[in-house]
């Protein structure tokens, strides 16, 4: 019930295309859903996050879509650029009993071809 599933494992997109990464969860206590971006040799960094009271959040070219009934959320990267090439992790967390209940998906390696 703690697991967050993420797909695809890797993704190759042409410059200017749309990158879509999907995640699914089971624990209904989760109420915070962030996405992290990690470049090679660096630590992960928060990209964008959403709470379940909204169905979509957009920041620049990055959009989270959230489907509470299906317990799924996804990251869309519009007009993908080579600089977006990185590993993306979805995550989920409850507000209470936070510590060990902050869980990451396994990651998606995105390559954007020039």
């Amino acid at each position, binding site marked *: 019930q703690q697991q967050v599933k993420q797909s695809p494992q890797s993704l190759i997109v042409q410059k200017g295309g749309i990158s879509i990464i999907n995640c699914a969860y089971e624990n209904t206590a989760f109420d915070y859903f962030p996405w992290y971006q990690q470049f090679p040799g*660096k630590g*992960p*960094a928060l990209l964008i996050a*959403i*709470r379940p009271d909204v169905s979509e959040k957009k920041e620049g070219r990055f959009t989270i879509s959230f489907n509470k009934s299906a317990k799924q959320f996804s990251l869309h990267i519009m007009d993908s650029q080579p600089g977006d090439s990185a590993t993306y*992790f979805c995550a989920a967390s409850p507000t209470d009993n936070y510590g*060990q209940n902050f869980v*990451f998906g396994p990651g998606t390696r995105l390559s954007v071809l020039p």
Partner: protein
Amino acid sequence: DAGITQSPRYKITETGRQVTLMCHQTWSHSYMFWYRQDLGHGLRLIYYSAAADITDKGEVPDGYVVSRSKTENFPLTLESATRSQTSVYFCASSEREWIGWEQYFGPGTRLTVT
């Protein structure tokens, strides 16, 4: 400098030796975490701490020891290093933002056990 730092950045040690990885944050965040990152496993939680003198196990705690006598420091000790502990180790600190618990990651320590 403000932020979260890890030292050393790279470490090579021999099987059976004790090694300590350091983590320091300047924000006075209440929560701190240690993760290991291996290919195919994403980020796995080793230990976390909710406050000074409060620590608890994560998903993969065996062979590791932590302490947190001061809010800003969270060292991770491998008591007797094994080859299976070769990995990249990330420290993170966290505080409740308005949207949820955001985690801030350090740059990582690449540990090789020979």
